[in-house]
């Protein structure tokens, strides 16, 4: 998945899937979720061992793990 023009690349881990997403520079987690057509109300993001809010700025090379709140009751 790619944005137009220069951007930053984020590695995304979700369940057993791993993929890369290019978002615009200055993007926050919410922008990444919207690019993936995910509702921020239903997703929690972690960078390493830290839970991050949806307006957390993203950096080139970030590895973001996404958890779907709907999963597994």
């Amino acid at each position: 998945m790619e944005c137009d023009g220069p951007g930053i690349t984020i590695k995304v881990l979700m369940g057993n899937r791993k993929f890369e997403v290019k978002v615009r520079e200055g993007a926050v987690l919410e922008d990444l979720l919207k690019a993936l057509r995910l509702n921020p109300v239903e997703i929690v993001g972690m960078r390493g061992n830290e839970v991050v809010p949806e307006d957390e700025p993203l950096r080139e090379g970030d590895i973001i793990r996404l958890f779907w709140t709907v999963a597994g009751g």
Partner: protein
Amino acid sequence: MPQCSFCSERSVIYIRDKGWHLCPEHFREYYLNKVRRALNLVRLKKGTFMVLGLSGGKDSFAMLSALAKLKGEYGLELMALMIDEGISGYVEPRLRVFKEASDAFEIPSEIVSFRDHFGYRLDEMVRISMSKGFTYKPCTICGVFKRYLLNRLAREYRADYLATGHNMDDEVQVFLMNLLKGNLTNISRDWVVSGVRLHEKFVVRVKPLYYCEEKEDLVYALLEGFKPPEVECPYLLYSFRGGLRRMINALEYLRPGTKRRMLALKDALRPNLMPEEGVSIGTCKECGEPSSDEVCKTCQLLNWLKR
């Protein structure tokens, strides 16, 4: 890096409808206050014995962790109970989470299975249902047997209360489903506390996470060390509630606070919907458990599976 609205620490969650950023410690306080809000409506006495019906998921983990923290404050005796439904590949990691969590929080625990009590694993029941035209969907079968077993076991353990991990999202979804079906009786019954005076064999049910949003449960659980099992229930695709959940969450994103307002609406309507003489139900003529029909749903389903 967003900062907590109440201190200089790093934020872990943005509470959209309040415009607050919260750090781990302020979020824990915010979350536990929501649990206290629900527990305070129950008017618990010191020494109350509460059985926690758990699934090994995030809500269960969050409830177990929160109640382990609050048990001294409320004088609670706790026991963790998990039902092994018998869903291959799905239940094993959840059983592990359940066992590790109850040991870590020092809560006595017990695991019971559909197989031992009903003679079938859920996988077998679903196969039988599919061979008979898929009359009963997996979530219906699972829900009926689980409710039956939790109530019966909680009673056998002499519990004062049976706590389940239903959260605000569950409550709002069920409220909307009942509205769509025009089922006002169910709306009147559904609250933080339910089952009071319905039947002598009913253990009163309590929902400590009633005011907690699903996302808050997950964040709290993650902060408390929850490792989400990376397996999904294979029967999720048959769930009727999935579409409703997506619609409600889309509204919540557009209008933060939608779920909280819907829950408040339900709670405001509820007293006006309650029958003046209260609701009471009968006894199943086959198993003797509480039932609104002559034969309870559990016996009906078991009879149907065996035919």
